[in-house]
């Protein structure tokens, strides 16, 4: 794809639309899912099945006053929500939705996504610091220590996949898994992963880490209402809060995309390319897979209560990091042998 100005503007426009629509309607899905898991109907009042709820919520957020508490560092306070939203948006540039649908394939796509994910946790720190509120501060410190703890196993697991496919380009990683579902990286007994029996565990680690990275329940220590009011966005109103919210849901989509690309074969058709429409490698399969993963995110959120901060850090440092490190070494050895 040529990098003309028109293409760039179009890609950015489509990315913003995709992220915005996703954020709005994932909130609806979340509320509906919460309802159904708890045997309530969920949003019902506005439109059929409450489908008009997200635009109305958005309108409400936009028309509210953006309060800036006295004594805060204004510039930092204002920049934090933008910083939360913008990396999530940027990460979509390099995510391949199918063979041809990718805004700009980058050879170090994986690296770029992790770089911007790290920037996302900085926005939490900036928000907590800028709010001049001790609860926000504690919350952001927690959120950052959590993100740091979970980024390590996430990256180690990703390195495992990068070793298997021999590329940091997300498109190439998917290309190496094309074919039927038995070619996906999650399955242990195939030559490309060196018959590594720990691949499903590896997938589980990546999945747990991507849940933790989005600061969602049961890992939402940063938003523990009973201890920290509302966490780092306590002082934010109107679209300041709205941007944090959208950033969170954009991050969920990115986490799901990453899981699908690294382990579930991206846009590949589960039963192989049969040559006629629904059963070719196309974008539909990719979207189906990411929304299935997002469903599991919602399912997890409404099943488990919040963990403690010790339990959270223990899980990462005691289990996920040693196991993912062991898996990394094992994969390296097996790839050398086979």
């Amino acid at each position, binding site marked *: 794809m040529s990098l003309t100005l028109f293409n760039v503007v179009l890609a950015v426009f489509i990315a913003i639309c995709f992220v915005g629509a996703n954020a709005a309607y994932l909130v609806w899905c979340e509320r509906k899912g919460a309802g*159904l*898991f708890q*045997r*309530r*109907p969920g949003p019902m009042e506005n439109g059929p099945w409450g489908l008009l709820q997200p635009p109305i919520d958005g309108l409400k957020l936009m028309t509210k006053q953006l309060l800036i508490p006295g004594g805060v560092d204004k510039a930092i306070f204002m920049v934090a929500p933008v910083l939360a939203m913008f990396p999530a948006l940027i990460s979509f540039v390099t995510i391949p939705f199918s063979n041809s649908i990718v805004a700009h394939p980058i050879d170090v796509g994986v690296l770029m996504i992790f770089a911007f994910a790290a920037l996302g946790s900085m926005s939490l720190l900036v928000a907590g610091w800028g709010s001049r509120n001790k609860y926000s501060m504690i919350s952001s410190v927690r959120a950052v220590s959590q993100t740091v703890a979970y980024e390590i196993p996430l990256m180690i697991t990703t390195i495992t996949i990068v070793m298997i496919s021999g590329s940091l380009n997300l498109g190439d990683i998917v290309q190496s898994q094309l074919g039927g579902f038995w070619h996906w990286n999650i399955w242990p007994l195939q030559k490309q992963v060196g018959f590594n029996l720990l691949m499903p565990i590896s997938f589980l680690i990546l999945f747990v880490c991507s849940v933790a990275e989005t600061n969602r329940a049961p890992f939402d220590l940063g938003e523990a209402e009973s201890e920290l009011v509302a966490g780092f966005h306590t002082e934010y109103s109107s679209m300041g809060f709205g941007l944090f919210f959208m950033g969170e849901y954009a991050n969920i989509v990115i986490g799901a995309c990453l899981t699908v690309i690294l382990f579930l074969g991206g846009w590949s058709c589960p039963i192989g390319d049969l040559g006629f429409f629904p059963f070719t490698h196309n974008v539909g399969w990719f979207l189906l897979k990411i929304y299935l993963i997002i469903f599991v995110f919602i399912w997890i959120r409404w099943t488990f209560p919040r963990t403690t901060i010790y339990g959270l850090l223990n899980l990462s440092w005691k289990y996920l990091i040693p196991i993912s490190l062991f898996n990394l070494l094992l994969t390296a050895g097996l790839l050398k042998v086979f």
Partner: protein
Amino acid sequence: MGGYFTDLITGTKSLLDGMWVTLKEFPRRPVTLNYPHESVKMYRRFRGHIELIGDEEGKPNCIVCSMCQRACPSGCISLGGVKPEGSKKKVLTSYILDFTTCSLCGSCVESCNFNALQFSNEYNLASTRKEDFIMDLLKRLEEQNQ
């Protein structure tokens, strides 16, 4: 190191058990009611505030004997009646219940010998205005007759 792998395995299993519980509930019908649009039917023996019982023509059974007024420990019932020309019985003209002081003891219903009082099934009684609790039961009976 003791219990490291046991913790891991039992922990994972208990998490999966939990997820199975919620997944089973997911496709089932909601157990809640869509409150403002539908509400629970109150039990027949629910003791709400009192109301008058009417006869077949819709006239109150009450003969204005004032037994309920005397039985009420909080003094929240006040009723009035007139004796029309050429009639032996009194006719009820007003029956006001001050629900702000009523304790729902039921002494009024017990004391009534003419089957003129009963407990209503009304339970949506929240209001921000005091006047809403000064109830004209005669008017309520007329509304019920319509």
